[in-house]
């Protein structure tokens, strides 16, 4: 989230070229025009980030079985809706409010009541909240895939409230909220949230999957992981492509201004995604014999998650390398979590937590430019910046890991002890759609009349036969 003084940039110039007379193209924009462009761009970027919810819903539904499709759609619908409300009335105040608790480690205002104090430069408070709430909903929804096909809906609903009301906002407070990680001698850098957003969801997903245990049938009696194949690969690929599109709001929107940095960020995001998909597919093809479609989709997303933190600091070639490494490690990460018997049906932990943590650490090596977090150029090891930034990034990801795993783990254990976290064996085998939500995801019309059907009986009598 870059906070900078606003100048008339390339994008703004191009826009004004279209909107007004060509003669103005070389001039600085009037502050009022820049104000409108900034708010309009961040609003549109926020809409793209909300669109990612559709991508998550399709991706997760596709990679699981058809008997649980209503349930996973409902979880995506509700972690967004409950998450936005929880973030509005509790989380936002903790993250960006003016109050201080426990020496500034937590703040508190009553949610959006504190919004007036918390605007970024040039943005309306409502623009800033709209954009931030989209990120909170993203962090929350990552968890649903890893906990798919076996979680009680009631428990999941409660989880999504607590993540967006308490856990994610504290991470925000320490980072984009200007807290202790931003006040170190060499401040942390995480431009659009590889760790802050994605790894928060990813590590919470891991704790959810651990506390739940694996799905029935995921591991053979001897412990060998067994595949439970996707029910709709078209959903998987469509979902991944929607997420890819949404990321052009996620990363370039995090500039929080319509300036000359937007397009370079979009370009680096694009290249990292492409590299992630190609490298993941090639790696999986080489080691497992066939190019698996869902792994390639995971690779696209791993490239995107990996570049999310360093996108403001690295050169374009480095974005390709970082996205490619993200795609490479996601293949082995999926195998690793299978081997340690953490059942993650959609690869959410590998994509969001593992690739996100890698992307955050990559800044320590590849940082060339100042992204307004670092406060200096050439901070990366490869540019003679030494290890100063590495220690900050390491502290950041380790403290974040400990905080999220402890709080999310405690939350899931508390849910398990109280309202229960996992459905019964019978319900899991039958599918969650009917028993949790009342009707199957793919309709109850069998295509012919059954008992209670309004179709009248034929009036002609049956011909007699011998």
């Amino acid at each position, binding site marked *: 989230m870059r906070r900078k003084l606003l100048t008339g940039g390339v994008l703004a110039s191009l826009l004004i070229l279209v909107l007004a007379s060509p003669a103005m193209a070389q001039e600085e924009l009037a502050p009022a025009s820049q104000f409108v462009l900034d708010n309009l761009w961040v609003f549109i970027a926020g809409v793209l980030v909300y669109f990612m919810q559709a991508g998550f819903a399709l991706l997760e539904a596709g990679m699981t079985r058809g008997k649980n499709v209503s349930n996973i759609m409902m979880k995506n619908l509700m972690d967004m809706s409950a998450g936005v409300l929880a973030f509005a009335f509790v989380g936002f105040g903790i993250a960006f409010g003016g109050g201080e608790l426990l020496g500034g480690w937590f703040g508190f205002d009553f949610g959006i009541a504190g919004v007036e104090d918390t605007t970024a430069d040039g943005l309306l408070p409502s623009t800033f909240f709209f954009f931030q709430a989209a990120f909170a909903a993203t962090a929350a929804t990552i968890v649903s895939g890893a906990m798919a096909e076996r979680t009680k809906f009631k428990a999941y609903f409660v989880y999504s409230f607590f993540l967006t009301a308490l856990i994610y906002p504290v991470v925000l407070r320490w980072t984009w909220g200007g807290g202790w990680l931003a006040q170190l001698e060499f401040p942390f850098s995480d431009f659009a949230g590889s760790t802050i957003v994605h790894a928060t969801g990813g590590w919470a997903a891991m704790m959810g999957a651990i506390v739940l245990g694996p799905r029935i049938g995921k591991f053979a009696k001897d412990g060998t992981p067994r595949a439970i194949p996707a029910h709709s690969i078209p959903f998987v690929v469509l979902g991944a492509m929607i997420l890819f599109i949404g990321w052009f709001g996620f990363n370039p929107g995090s500039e929080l201004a319509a300036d000359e940095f937007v397009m370079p960020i979009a370009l680096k995001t694009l290249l990292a995604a492409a590299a992630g998909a190609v490298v993941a597919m090639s790696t999986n093809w080489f080691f497992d014999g066939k190019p*698996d479609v869902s792994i390639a989709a995971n690779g696209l997303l791993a490239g995107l998650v990996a570049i999310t933190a360093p996108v403001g600091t690295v050169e374009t070639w480095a974005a390709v390398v970082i996205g490619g490494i993200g795609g490479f490690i996601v293949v082995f990460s999926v195998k690793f979590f299978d081997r340690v018997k953490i059942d993650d049906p959609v690869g959410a932990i590998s994509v969001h937590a593992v690739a996100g943590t890698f992307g955050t650490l990559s800044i320590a090596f590849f940082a060339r430019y100042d992204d307004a977090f670092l406060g200096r150029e050439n901070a990366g090891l490869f540019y003679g910046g030494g290890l100063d930034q590495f220690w900050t990034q390491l502290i950041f990801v380790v403290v974040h890991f400990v905080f999220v795993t402890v709080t999310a783990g405690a939350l899931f254990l508390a849910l398990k002890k109280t309202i229960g976290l996992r459905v019964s064996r019978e319900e899991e085998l039958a599918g969650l759609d009917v028993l949790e939500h009342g009707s199957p995801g793919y309709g109850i019309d069998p295509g012919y009349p059954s008992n209670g059907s309004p179709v009248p009986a034929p009036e002609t009598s049956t011909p007699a036969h011998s």
Partner: protein
Amino acid sequence: MLQLVTAVIKPTRLGPVKETLKESGVAGMTVTEANGFGQQGGHTETYRGADYEVEFIPKVKIEILCDDVDADRIMDVIASAGRTGEIGDGKIWVTEVSKALRIRTGEVGAEAV
């Protein structure tokens, strides 16, 4: 006497089998998607780098109701048009049918076929 010829064949052979049967004068058939295994057993596929067993392999089941005298000829046609020579080509069997009736007209026996 009527006979019911039942054949379980590879889905990829359904087209040639149907064409050849029509050419040989068979007026109708019932086709059902089926799953099962025979001598070939199942096989193993991979998804996300992990193996899974395909225990029941997709097949097509054809049922043809016919007169006694036609049963052997229909079996031969299905066998020759359905054969690939690979394992998993399927089976054909014939059972006797005690009664049959055409619903629209009420015709019974050989008239109903």
